[in-house]
């Protein structure tokens, strides 16, 4: 076997601490090495040509490139080797940058170590065999979880490219938080007006299968081949028969009992309801926890008035399964509910702000509903307690955000902008009103964002006070807001009529459960973790699963939409080919040896080990042995190390190869 060794200087990155020319000279003496050379930039085109030409001219069988981490350029060099006609798995990388030059400063020692690393790689490559990539078919169909603006955007982008989409939404209607908003920054266009056409487009799209009031129960399979089980919660309505006439909603005797989620508790709704007039689909749902029929067995008013006999009191939850190739998670966020301290949580809450105790101390989404033309006050700014117009209003930013003492260390990112918007909307509707904003910093990075905040301050006369509020209490019908003006260095007391708290954006309460169902990592706050914060922002470590919107971190609408389109594009990349190529470096079981102890099954982090039946000549099952699903296996080697009878081999990293590497390394001590 003729092996070539190529030592890269990586400019000064390696060359500064490793004497690359010496490494190349000494590597030439390793048995089996037929050619060795160093180069300033091996990854450059001329550098790659050095490798290609050497393979052709010297008739090399295998190559070792001493360079940066294989994460960086293994693909590059393997492709170069393949272009020159050798199997790409006969190209190995000796990492002499991250694991040598960057962490040492003594040139002779670092040079010795670099040579050791080269020798190890040479011994391994001698035992490498040509491999072929595994090909798996791709189901060209996507699942989108969450029907807010991110999910809608991702679903439409994929569907408009001609691929089928299953869109799952846990609420009775799609639309998400954006459907609750009054106007949107920085252009102040009406949220519903720009959103509802998209919602209708989703509903009417021939390629989109919409499952509302449904939740993902189980996800099996792997990239290109997921099987998803979805629970359709019982609506108590026959979706085929219902025309959405709304008569049942009008006649429902329960008007003032049920908490109206869409109006954030500022209004009530009947037991049978659609969340809002523009709901998609326009099919009601019965809230069984308040419906008289489910409580007492009497009433059935909705059934009596329904001309289509669409009410199904006995309807049960059903499970449906869908085959998809990719999954886009767009489950969004919740607002931090500051009146409740979650049990066993380190979050301490803001009892001193009186949220939950005082009706006129509200959060940002509640203010959106008050400012919205379709809201409980028809867009008039009226305070919840007595429906009077507040003449003095205080907005407090960073309630829970950027507060390690009582909340979360992260910035919720959108609050500076929406608070400016709120204050502006207030001033537009209450001309003689005074609006105050307590802030820590104004973070208005974004196109036309800073200008928007300046407009609130300069044109609309909103008074910005830099400082925190220590306490809010009620006195003589006013809400006394005590805070500090840190620029003036003085305490401030404002007797407000209403207070709006910009509470932190937090992950959905069941975010971790869904993450475990799908196999998505999440951070300590429950936000989903991307693979790389800069270069792979929409991918997660489970291949074929992508993120969109605020489920990954707090985001505004423009960012969510951009991310959704990115997640859609990633799905489409997957759907661009009929087969997926996967690394052949997976585990295989030596079936003759396997004793069926299934320790491997217990340790496998990817659920890639299956039980395979062993049958006798009569076709009777006599035993079970382990079998590796090559589609799921990530080649981590855990099963390989665990197997007590050495019956599992990791292709490309078998015991012989590993021992050869260790032996080569131990030579340096002799």
């Amino acid at each position, binding site marked *: 076997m003729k092996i070539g060794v190529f030592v890269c200087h990586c400019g000064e990155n390696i060359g500064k601490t490793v004497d690359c020319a010496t490494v190349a000279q000494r590597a030439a003496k390793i048995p089996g090495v037929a050619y060795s050379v160093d180069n300033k930039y091996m990854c450059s085109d001329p550098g790659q040509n050095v490798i290609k030409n050497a393979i052709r001219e010297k008739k090399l069988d295998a190559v070792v490139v001493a360079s940066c981490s294989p994460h960086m350029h293994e693909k590059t060099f393997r492709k170069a080797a393949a272009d020159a006609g050798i199997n790409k798995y006969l190209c190995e990388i000796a990492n002499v940058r991250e694991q040598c030059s960057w962490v040492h400063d003594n040139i002779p020692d670092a040079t010795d170590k670099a040579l050791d690393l080269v020798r190890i790689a040479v011994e391994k490559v001698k035992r490498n065999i040509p491999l072929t990539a595994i090909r798996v078919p791709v189901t060209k169909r996507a699942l989108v979880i969450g029907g807010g603006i991110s999910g809608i955007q991702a679903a439409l982008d994929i569907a408009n490219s001609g691929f089928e989409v299953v869109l799952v939404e846990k609420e009775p209607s799609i639309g998400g938080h954006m459907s609750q908003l009054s106007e949107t920054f920085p252009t102040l266009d009406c949220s519903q007006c720009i959103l509802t056409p998209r919602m209708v487009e989703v509903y009417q799209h021939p390629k989109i299968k919409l499952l509302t009031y449904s939740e993902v129960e189980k996800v099996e399979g792997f990239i290109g081949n997921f099987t998803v089980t979805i629970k359709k919660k019982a609506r108590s309505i026959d979706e085929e028969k219902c025309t959405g006439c709304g008569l049942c909603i009008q006649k429902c005797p329960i008007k003032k009992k049920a908490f109206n989620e869409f109006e954030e508790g500022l209004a009530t709704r009947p037991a049978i309801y659609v969340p809002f007039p523009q709901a998609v689909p326009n099919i009601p749902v019965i809230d069984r926890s308040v419906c008289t029929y489910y409580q007492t067995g009497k009433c059935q008013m909705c059934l009596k008035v329904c001309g289509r006999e669409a009410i199904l009191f006995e309807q049960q939850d059903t499970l449906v399964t869908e085959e998809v190739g990719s999954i886009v998670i767009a489950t969004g966020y919740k607002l931090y509910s500051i009146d409740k301290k979650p049990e066993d949580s380190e979050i301490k809450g803001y009892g001193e702000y009186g949220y939950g105790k005082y009706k006129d101390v509200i959060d940002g989404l509640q203010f959106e509903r008050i400012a919205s033309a379709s809201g409980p006050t028809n867009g008039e700014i009226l305070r919840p307690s007595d429906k009077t117009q507040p003449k003095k209003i205080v907005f407090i930013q960073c309630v829970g955000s950027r507060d390690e003492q009582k909340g979360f260390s992260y910035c919720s990112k959108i609050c500076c902008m929406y608070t400016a918007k709120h204050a502006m909307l207030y001033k537009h509707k209450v001309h003689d009103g005074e609006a105050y904003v307590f802030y820590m910093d104004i973070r208005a990075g974004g196109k036309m964002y800073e200008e928007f905040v300046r407009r609130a301050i300069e044109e609309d006369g909103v008074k910005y006070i830099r400082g925190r509020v220590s306490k809010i*209490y009620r006195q003589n019908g006013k809400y006394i807001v005590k805070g500090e003006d840190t620029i003036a260095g003085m305490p401030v007391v404002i007797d407000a009529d209403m207070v709006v708290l910009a509470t932190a954006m937090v992950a959905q309460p069941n975010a971790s459960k869904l993450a475990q169902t799908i196999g998505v990592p999440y951070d300590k706050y429950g936000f989903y973790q991307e693979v790389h914060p800069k270069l792979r922002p929409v991918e997660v470590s489970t291949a074929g699963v992508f993120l969109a919107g605020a489920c990954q971190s707090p985001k505004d609408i423009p960012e969510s939409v951009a991310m959704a389109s990115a997640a859609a594009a990633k799905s489409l990349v997957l759907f661009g080919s009929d087969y997926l190529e996967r690394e052949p470096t997976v585990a295989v079981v030596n079936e003759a040896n396997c004793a069926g102890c299934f320790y491997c099954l217990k340790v496998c982090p990817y659920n890639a080990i299956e039980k395979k039946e062993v049958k006798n000549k009569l076709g009777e099952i006599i035993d079970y042995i382990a079998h590796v699903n090559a589609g799921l296996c990530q080649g981590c080697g855990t099963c390989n190390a665990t197997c007590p009878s050495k019956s599992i081999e990791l292709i490309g990293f078998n015991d012989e190869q590993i021992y050869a590497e260790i032996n080569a390394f131990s030579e340096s001590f002799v």
Partner: protein
Amino acid sequence: MIVGYYPGCSLTGTGKEYDMSLRKVLSLLDVQVEEINDWCCCGATSAHATNHLLSVALPARNLMLAQKQNLNELLAPCAACYNRLIGSKHEISHNADLKKKVEFVLEEDFNSSTEVINIVQLLQKVGKEKIKSLVKVSLKDIKVACYYGCLLVRPNAVTKFDDAENPTSMEDIISATGALTVEWNYKTECCGGAHSIARKDIVTFLSKNILDDAKLNGAHVIVVACPMCHSNLDMRQRAIKKLYPSHEEIPVLYLSELIGIALGLNGKELGINLHFVDAINLLQMVKAEM
């Protein structure tokens, strides 16, 4: 029940009615108090404003004295003493360097296992039911504003007692006497504390706000658990009256005094006659003796 007792300077001087009433009430509740022998100043204000080591070492000495008397629990009725004792213990246990310094000053190892408790915590341990069963005079006609001040519940990480922003433990104990407690806004606001000596103007203003809010919310009496708060809220009412002639006086009682009234003790036994603001009307409301 036996509990260690650290009276501190106030309870032997300006707040001696707190000491009188507390000892009588606790004996009715079958709690024996054992005073620490040879206790010294807790270091409040003067020490912690001038010398950090001294402010930690003084309470440490008192804690070690309690340790030597084998006291599991040490009652510090004064909120400032409570805060110094529990705060010093917390600091020493979280700072090895400081511990060494304190041990050098004390000339002994610091290994206090005594739990420092305040008056509300002691009454919680006695139990609401026990208090209820001994009530002789129902206080159902009076409305009480419970004032915690700044030190009783803070810093929360150290005291680990009640809610720093909206404490309710005192209200809960007082409900055993039948008295009503009012919702008000100034229960943890600063009364001005030790500025009483140097900046009377600040203390007068801050105390007035507290008294006003209690009255505005319908309270007949303010109940405190700190001699410093008591002297500011009780003694400064004359100065407030001078500056704001419309000010109407409101009596300020120690928690132990209010419970004492409910348990049938008279005003003199509890030292209520020693206050600046007359509480005679209040006692008449519940038909108790002065």
